[in-house]
């Protein structure tokens, strides 16, 4: 059993198409820690000590958020700025997170073909996630390939919400039960509900 913490961050969750559904599925998973960041810190007054302790208490740190302007919602950035302190997460003596795993579960409004050199976003999705990937690396954590839903705004019409949300639940359970085993498939690798590298239960 690995200990898993999920940070959910969505300031406009009332308008969420997919993330709210995913979060509901996550709430059904037992034995993991689930944090609604915007509910805990509506005034952005992040409790640094508490957050650092949470990180120490868990092996896998997963952030779930909608991609806003190729980055995280602002509270996640605030969380990073404050919690990942020098001497704790990086720099001299900053080895407290070494060996942990970090993963993202993100939804992107653009369709999959947009995230390519020839698409209108001009880059693969993973390229936009580089800052987060490097954050994990600098903190000596292993960055796992992200769990992604492209075209999130059209997902309800396309009937993609439910499979993605249940896939999310299976992912969290797999991480919890050490059944997640992602072979390195290159720098552009992303995971979807039908490509989850999970061992069979039992």
């Amino acid at each position, binding site marked *: 059993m690995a200990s898993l913490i999920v940070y959910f961050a969505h*300031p*406009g969750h*009332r*308008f969420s198409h997919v993330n709210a559904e995913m979060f509901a599925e996550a709430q059904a998973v037992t034995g993991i820690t689930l944090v609604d960041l*915007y*509910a805990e810190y*509506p005034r952005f007054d992040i409790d640094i000590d508490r957050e650092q302790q949470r990180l120490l208490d868990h092996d896998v740190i997963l952030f779930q958020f909608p991609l*806003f302007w190729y980055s995280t*919602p602002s509270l996640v950035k605030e969380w990073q700025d404050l919690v990942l302190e020098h001497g704790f997460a990086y720099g001299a003596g900053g080895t407290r997170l070494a060996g942990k795993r970090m993963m993202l579960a993100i939804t992107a409004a653009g369709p999959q073909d947009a995230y390519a050199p020839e698409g209108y976003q001009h880059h693969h999705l993973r390229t936009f996630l580089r800052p987060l990937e490097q954050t994990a690396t600098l903190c000596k954590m292993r960055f796992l390939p992200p769990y992604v839903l492209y075209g999130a*705004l059209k997902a309800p019409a396309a009937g993609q919400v439910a499979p993605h949300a249940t896939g999310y639940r299976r992912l969290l359970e797999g991480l919890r039960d050490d059944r997640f085993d992602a072979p390195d498939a290159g720098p552009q690798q992303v995971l979807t509900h039908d490509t989850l590298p999970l061992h069979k239960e039992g």
Partner: protein
Amino acid sequence: MEGFLLLAFIFLIAGVVAVPVASRLRLGSVLGYLIAGIAISPLLAALQVDVISLQHFAEFGVVMMLFLVGLELEPRMLWAMKAKLLGLGGLQVGLTALAVMGVAVVLGQAWSIALAIGLIFALSSTAIVLQTLNEKGLMKSDGGQGSFQVLLFQDIAVIPMLALIPLLAMPELMGLADSAGGAGSGHEAVVQAGATSSHDAGAAPETTSSHDTGPGFVESLPGWQRGLVTIAAIAAVVLGGSLLTRPVFRFIAMAKLRELFTATALMMVIGIALLMSLVGLSPALGTFLAGVVLANSEYRHELESDIDPFKGLLLGLFFMTVGAGIDFALLFDNLAGILALTLGLIALKAGVLLALSFMFRIGGADRWLFALGLAQAGEFGFVLLGFSVTNQVIPAPLADLLLLVVALSMLLTPALFIAYERLILPRHAGRAEPDDAIDDEAPIIVAGHGRFGGIVNRMLLAGGHKTVVLDVSSAQLEMLRAFDIKVFFGDASRPDLLHAAGIHAARMLVVAIDDAEQAVELVRHVSQTHPEVYIVARALNREHVYQLYAAGARDIIRDTFDSAVRAGRSALQALGTHPYDAERQAQGFVRNDRRSLQLLAELYDPDIPAHENAAYVDRAKGLMAEQEAAMRGGSSAFGTRIDRGWSPPTERDVQEEAKGADKAVS
């Protein structure tokens, strides 16, 4: 009765007319009073007013002034200046006395007379100098501090002088004088005054006068008992001041009567002066000591503002009597001689002071302030001259001449200050020493230390700022004092108390008093008289906000608004609203409310109660409807707009976009 009223009226009208004119001409109030005194002197002569005894009554202003000076001076500050006090003061008195004595001997006086004159002329005028320094804001400068130390030493030195002068008596010299001229009218007055003066009570042999306040009972005691009585009196002042003030004022505060505080403060000062006179000490010194003892007290500013008007009036009266007391007949008979003596005296004293300023490293413009400021003879000179005559130390005709020298030198002092300002200061301009700016007065005044002001004060202190807190609750004060919070008793809506608390030097005023009208008045007063003071005001409600704004406050915080918004947010959250949504709604509500506050401000009319102001009521209703619609989510107002940034494109937006993209492709 009419006689008293007439006299009071003459003095008051002279002061009221002359002082503003003098201030307008930037001559200072002291010169104004002196000129007013000269102007009314013929009238006083016609009414046969005893100017000199009036002057001795007015000298009580000096006693009060020293009390106030003491209040400004914490004991540790007094202790810190002990070396300068004794060194600078002692040398000034000693050297000046010797120099004057030398000149007098050269001019043909017997040594005993010369020494008496030297001692008398060594003293400067505490009244004129401190008043002028305060008025011009020079008290904290090096020159001002040096002057104060010298003056304080002089006040102490008067006591041994009173003991020494009778020893110089040489009656055979007096016979000479008596046969030569006899006693002038000024002489009579001075003799009488010498006996009635509070300064020499106890030490003076002629203390049997019916006017006398000090029967001088200690005279009859043996030396060691006198010493014990004196020490007991000082101990009484120190202990009484530090132990009794608080319970007495708490008792007084129960009556909630403004005038009782004034009466108590006067009672204290007069009582101490009386006690000191009884044991043969200087009342000025006694009240100064009491002031120092009370400098740390929370009632300091209250005492200051209570005593201050009396001090001002009595000093004004004193200056006028100095002006009125000049015997012009005698002056014009010996004009050249007296002028020469006066100018010579000023030059001599200034010379000694200049030399000392080099020794004690008083530099720059301060050196001249120190030297010119203290170059006159002082009001104690009147007392000591009279005392010398009665003790047959100085012949009366000579004393009359010297009296004129003293008065004239005092009259010239304001001119010397003006010379300092107009001739010396400009040359030193731009070379102001940085440490002059250091001011121990706290630059932030917090008016009201209740549940609101207390929090503001705590935050300011935590932020490393110095504050002066004023509050009217004695119980509250004692509790705060126990926690080492610097608070003072007093009603902040009173301008005089604000002044005592240092509003003239303040950077900021936090208005947190409970009474809404008083708060508005306070803001209006401060924003008009001290526009440079930044005002943070607490409002009780929306109308109060408008009134405070009209009065000149700019940072206006409704005292219950923020907490109510927080309560509303908690309620929404408890009802199931996501905490972040509740926060956003609260923010939106605050924004909306602020907008309506501004919109309604345009319609607010302080002369019409809000509920009778039709336009105001109409718009308020409209805004309220808007807000309600917003809360129910039926409008584009804050309810939905707060989520604008994170609401994704709608289904239709997405389809439109897709169509546009298709077109672009095709």
